[in-house]
């Protein structure tokens, strides 16, 4: 799915932010990306969603060496990824509906189809009554759900989330992780950058840990398997292929 070989990154002539980073995310895998603030998590994510070019090394994304790709080929690759930003990065002048519709519009999906899918997904995340609401009128948790809906509306092959639980309390953080696990079960490769150790310990997934630009892979701990029993129920048809009921966990 994605492979980093000896990736190094520095901004301008500054110190190296990432040094000889090596890892592979297999299709359908779920990883946490951990590390202290300033460890390089956001830079690593930016490299993954092609928002940056590495100073050295090779990134292979969906089986293609990114360095050899033409610039015109990159948008199509980016559209196969969903990104959840720590600060949501919603467009304040657009409604929740239009924000979530953005990836589909970029992909040239027909408007009727867009409407059907977006309304369904927003209803599933509990925002059916806020379709036309502008982000500034929504609460932090609601904005976060809009941002997540936007990142998954086009059923991405790779989902990257930067501190998605950073602005919410633990119960909402748990719900978010359940949602990401559901998507992962449907085949989406997931990478979540977080420093919320308490939350992570409840989910049995390997971690990529960054410490001053150097990456270490930590295997999943079996002891947290019990936390998986409360996985949220089904997803909307736009994601799962059929509407299985349930919705945003109460």
């Amino acid at each position, binding site marked *: 799915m994605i492979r980093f070989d000896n990736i190094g990154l520095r901004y301008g002539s500054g110190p190296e932010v990432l040094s000889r980073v090596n890892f592979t995310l297999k299709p359908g895998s779920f990883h946490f990306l951990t590390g202290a603030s300033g460890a390089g998590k956001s830079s690593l994510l930016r490299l993954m969603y092609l928002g940056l070019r590495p100073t050295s090394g090779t990134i292979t994304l969906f089986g293609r060496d990114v360095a050899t790709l033409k610039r015109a080929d990159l948008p199509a690759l980016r559209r196969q990824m969903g990104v959840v930003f720590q600060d949501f990065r919603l467009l304040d002048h657009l409604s929740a509906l239009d924000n979530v519709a953005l990836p589909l519009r970029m992909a040239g999906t027909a408007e009727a189809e*867009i409407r059907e899918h977006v309304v369904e997904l927003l209803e599933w995340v509990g925002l059916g009554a806020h379709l036309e609401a502008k982000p500034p009128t929504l609460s932090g948790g609601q904005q976060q759900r809009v941002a997540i809906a936007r990142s998954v509306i086009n059923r991405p092959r790779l989902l990257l989330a930067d501190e998605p639980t950073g602005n919410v309390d633990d119960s909402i953080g748990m719900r978010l992780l359940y949602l990401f696990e559901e998507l992962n079960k449907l085949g989406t490769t997931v990478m979540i950058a977080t420093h919320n150790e308490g939350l992570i310990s409840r989910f049995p997934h390997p971690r990529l840990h960054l410490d001053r630009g150097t990456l270490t892979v930590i295997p999943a701990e079996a002891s947290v398997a019990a936390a998986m029993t409360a996985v949220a129920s089904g997803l909307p048809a736009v994601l799962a292929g059929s509407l299985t009921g349930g919705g945003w966990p109460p």
Partner: protein
Amino acid sequence: MMFRHRFDLPLVEDATGRFLIWIMAVMVYLGIVALAGALVLAGMASRWENGLTGRLTVQISPQPDTPGRGSDPEMVAPLVQRTEVALALLRATPGVLRAEPVTAATTHKLLEPWLGTALLDDLPLPALIDVQVAPGSDPEVPALADRLARSVAGAHLDNHAAWLDDLRRLARTVQLVALAVVVLVGTAALVAVVFAVRTGLAIHSPVVELLHIMGASDRYVARQFQAHVVGLALRGGMVGLALGLATLGLLDRATGEAAAGMLPVMALPPPQWLALPAVPLVAAALAAVTARWTVLRVLAALP
């Protein structure tokens, strides 16, 4: 309507949009006035040239020794005789299709706006002969002038060549000036578009970057700016067109009233009036291309 037309970028809220409307209005206005001026002059020059090409004028002075001074009724009969001689000579010249004297009434009518009626009656006016040359024939003008001068006292042949040359030069110069004005105005408008688009890109760089990360192609982003700029350019262009047409209408009316004999007809013919609305459309098209080019150039710097 849930999915009404909208921009992903909040461009409509930009102050640069309002400034671009007025810039385009002024530019289209100036472009229309310059274009109309060039068209009017081209039409005038063409009408004069068509009217004079293939025409010669023979002027016979009433008093050959002291032309233009005083009035001597004794000279009237010789002038008529000399005119007859000149007419005979001209009609016998190969290539001359027609040679007709200009009547005194016509000469008076031509001079009346300039000299008034009272003075005209006291002036000894020259006899004029209007000569039409057969198309394709080319009589030797210097030789004909020489023969006329030797045969008819006070006769002078004018083929309007010098005047036509001056007219052509004037028309070309004014057209070049009009073209330069249009080019300068157009360049200024396009620079304004580049400035507005670059400002928009700078103001909305977080959104542009977000769209880029989400997989928007450069063309997708460029289309947003393009549509926005075309909308502004058309709105400004319509204002400029309305002001331009109003100005030309006023000028048309004013010159129509003043032209009675004194000025040549300076009105645009109807088909050329119809060409003027093309100015804002062309301006909008150029603005669209410029906006697209600017966005694509700037976005090319993104990874």
